[in-house]
């Protein structure tokens, strides 16, 4: 659809095709960060480890997508503006700040040995950072200096039909990919922990659920 259905953009030409991978990835990553915060709030409310695990995995996948957003955005900026990175641009810098903020999530978790404390502190971090994401987005939209295009602009009439349909399909595809990656990661983590526990149990270890060595990942 991106290459055969969506028409060429009158302003940017063929380079605009990057939009269909860059923007859905950014939206899904940001929604993922917020979802991670919601899961963390659920952990603090219920104290069930599964919510900590969901928060951890959602943030993990969102950070992977955020790397893609930064790289594809940089390529688009080079083609469109002639620079790989523009420090004056609020949208770019704010996304970089969000990415760097979430990059500290693993060191934070790894620095705490006590698993209960680790889950609690990481949950508080995920809630605060998750709340920062929409606030940051709104602040950037209100900024005056702006050369980054707006996806959901209402003053300019929004996207024409074929562009919009292609974008919606790309967004749904990216969301489904995100959900698949989360399911895959969760299944892998569950299987690993269950197997380790079973092995320790069979080996006759009393403390069968304790992992050897420190880990940033939550423990089921």
């Amino acid at each position: 659809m991106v290459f055969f259905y969506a028409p060429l953009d009158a302003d940017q030409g063929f380079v605009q095709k990057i939009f269909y991978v860059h923007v859905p990835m950014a939206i899904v990553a940001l929604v993922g960060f917020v979802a991670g915060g919601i899961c963390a709030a659920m952990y603090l409310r219920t104290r069930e480890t599964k919510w900590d695990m969901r928060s951890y995995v959602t943030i993990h996948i969102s950070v992977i997508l955020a790397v893609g957003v930064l790289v594809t955005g940089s390529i688009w900026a080079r083609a469109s503006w002639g620079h790989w990175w523009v420090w004056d641009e609020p949208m770019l810098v704010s996304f970089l700040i969000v990415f760097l903020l979430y990059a500290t999530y693993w060191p934070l978790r790894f620095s705490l040995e006590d698993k209960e404390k680790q889950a609690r502190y990481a949950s508080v971090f995920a809630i605060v950072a998750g709340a920062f994401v929409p606030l940051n987005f709104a602040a950037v939209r209100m900024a005056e200096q702006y050369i980054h295009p707006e996806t959901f602009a209402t003053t300019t009439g929004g996207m024409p039909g074929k562009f919009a349909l292609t974008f919606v399909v790309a967004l749904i595809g990216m969301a489904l990919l995100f959900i698949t990656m989360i399911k895959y990661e969760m299944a892998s983590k569950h299987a690993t922990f269950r197997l380790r526990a079973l092995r320790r149990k069979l080996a006759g270890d009393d403390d069968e659920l304790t992992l050897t060595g420190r880990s940033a990942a939550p423990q089921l």
Partner: protein
Amino acid sequence: MLPALPLDEAGKYVAGAYLVFLLLILIYVAIMASKLSKIEQEVVAIAELVERRGSGADAEKAPPRPPPAAPRARKEPVK
């Protein structure tokens, strides 16, 4: 903003962006495949452990064998 790039020049940027996306997915899949192989190793180790335990339990349950007969004392030749 710069004027729109011609197709031959823009193509490399678009291809680059989509390749980055593909590469990210491929790296993720490769990492998950290595994790899966670790899980498989763990399953094999557990299966071996269960098998060893099972054979050990069978050995314990089996009726005790009679002690082996004492070797006969050889008669000293009478001189």
